[in-house]
């Protein structure tokens, strides 16, 4: 599984990563993480605002910090 956090690397981006890592641990899953900080790369995804969470190249949310429950549901899919 490949997890991407899109955003400039601010506190919100770090929070998204932290919650996602916690969710992965709860599910006993492993994933590779990638931070995408370049605007040309971020805006290649269909989003307008960051932070955004991308799981296996599917945008799960953007412009907000998702709850851990949301992330758990996405990771189970």
């Amino acid at each position: 599984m490949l997890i991407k956090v899109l955003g400039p690397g601010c506190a919100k981006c770090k929070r998204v990563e932290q919650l996602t890592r916690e969710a992965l641990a709860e599910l006993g899953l492993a994933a590779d993480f990638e931070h995408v900080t370049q605007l040309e790369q971020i805006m290649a995804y269909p989003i307008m605002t960051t932070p955004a969470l991308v799981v296996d190249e599917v945008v799960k949310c953007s412009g907000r910090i998702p709850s851990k429950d949301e992330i758990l549901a996405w990771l189970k899919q």
Partner: protein
Amino acid sequence: MNAAAAPAPLPQAKECCPTSTRKRIEFKHALLVDVREKDELEKLALDVPDLLNIPLSDFERRFKEIPRDRQVIMVSADGHDSLRATYYLMREGYEDVLNMTDGIAKWILRGFPVKGDCSGFKLDVNAGGCCSAS
């Protein structure tokens, strides 16, 4: 199952300074699109003959109001939000879209016309470097 491929990065957005923007309005009939919120626009707006306001908060829903057959220059307070909107339009297939570098702050510093009150507008952008400087 293999994951989908990552989208290719977009090419670097084209940018133009306020002076070039004015020339493009005059000679290329360029349309300015201000992505600030409506209340910000009501306080201070560029004094240009043709301006479209599509706030960033509503951009994904309304971007199709922007014509594709005309040069478009995206504008925001300091050029950052408009750069994001520029890339969004590029991804949507708009071919002639530019970002106004340093935004309205640079426009004001160049002494170009605005409607409204400039006092209190954040002007912490590079004051020099515009192409009309001689």
